């Protein structure tokens, strides 16, 4: 048995070395280039076994293994794209972290029967990003204090958030907890911040989440306007207005967008009042 174990560890060490060599070549390859694509494909092919073995650990989730592998594959792609050799983490460690994360995320999405508030989702994204950055930097998960520092939260606030996140996100795959707590709720405002705080964290995150959603919608519309749109004449005809009116509405909207994008951060603007809009015509 000991012989098998040591052969296995030699194989793993060799695999790791080959990964690092390929990753070093990848980081030096111009982007985009055929060489880069080819190296990425080789690294992915070499590590697909890692995805399969991690996916197999989640077989009890009830999801088809192929789907779990597919989700894990996304984690592997992200690992290849974002891995930084200069940091002190082995590729396999980093990739395992991301593959597991993607599979868990996939399972949660598939099973979720509760509405996760937008601000919790936003906070989750930030926590996940901070965890990944820390993991890349130090090769191990952050402590509560380290994660709190990265997110500018104190330990108590972060602990409350993580409790809420766990309740919301792990309920679906943790059958035992689901049975005992079928309807978990996010942490309350009082749990997260002292009452004296002028801007409670959950209020901030909810407003930030609303801004993010609006910005995403804005981007979607602008892309549509430039890349997929109907003609102004067609739209004018449909709405019973002239092509010139449609054109003016579009121009004004884009001006408004430009103003928004060029506007300073409100924290720099002090008490400045928003400007009054011009009337729009139809």
């Amino acid at each position: 048995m000991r012989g098998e174990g040591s052969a296995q560890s030699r194989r793993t060490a060799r695999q790791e070395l080959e990964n690092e060599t390929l990753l070093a070549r990848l980081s030096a390859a111009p982007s985009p280039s055929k060489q880069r694509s080819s190296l990425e494909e080789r690294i992915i092919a070499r590590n697909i076994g890692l995805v399969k073995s991690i996916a197999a650990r989640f077989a009890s989730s009830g999801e088809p293994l192929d789907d779990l592998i597919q989700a894990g594959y996304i984690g592997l792609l992200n690992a290849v794209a974002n891995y930084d050799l200069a940091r002190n983490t082995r590729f396999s460690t980093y990739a395992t972290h991301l593959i597991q994360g993607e599979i868990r995320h996939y399972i949660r999405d598939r099973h979720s029967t509760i509405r996760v508030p937008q601000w919790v989702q936003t906070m989750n994204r930030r926590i996940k990003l901070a965890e990944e950055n820390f993991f890349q930097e130090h090769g191990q998960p952050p402590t509560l204090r380290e994660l709190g520092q990265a997110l500018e939260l104190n330990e108590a606030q972060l602990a409350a958030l993580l409790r809420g996140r766990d309740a919301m996100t792990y309920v679906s795959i943790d059958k035992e907890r689901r049975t005992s707590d079928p309807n978990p709720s996010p942490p309350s405002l009082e749990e997260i911040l002292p009452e004296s705080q002028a801007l409670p964290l959950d209020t901030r995150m909810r407003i930030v989440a609303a801004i993010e959603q609006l910005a995403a919608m804005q981007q979607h519309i602008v892309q549509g306007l430039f890349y997929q749109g109907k003609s102004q004449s067609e739209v004018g005809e449909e709405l019973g207005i002239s092509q010139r009116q449609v054109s003016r509405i579009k121009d004004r909207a884009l001006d408004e967008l430009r103003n928004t994008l060029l506007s300073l951060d409100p924290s720099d603007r002090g008490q400045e009042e928003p400007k009054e809009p011009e009337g729009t015509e139809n």
Partner: protein
Amino acid sequence: MKHTADVDLLSLIGRAIEELRLSIGRFEDADREAALAHLGTVVAAIDSYLERLDRDPLLRLAPIPPSEVRDGLTRIRGDLDEVIAAHDAAAP
């Protein structure tokens, strides 16, 4: 933020984002009443826009499914309503 009945979606979004940022600023200044007023303005502007969404030329120019926009704005409006309600309930 003046919420005219004929504002287009991009203008609505631009102004709503600005109002939401101002709201955060007012909260940070501990001026909760002003902060909530900014949020209320956004909610009212979304309501006003939703009433005339089907007539917004930008949606046809884009073209973005109106149902998708309606759902997105309704969700945002609901979230902001919850914030307002939570702070109203917590008011002394």
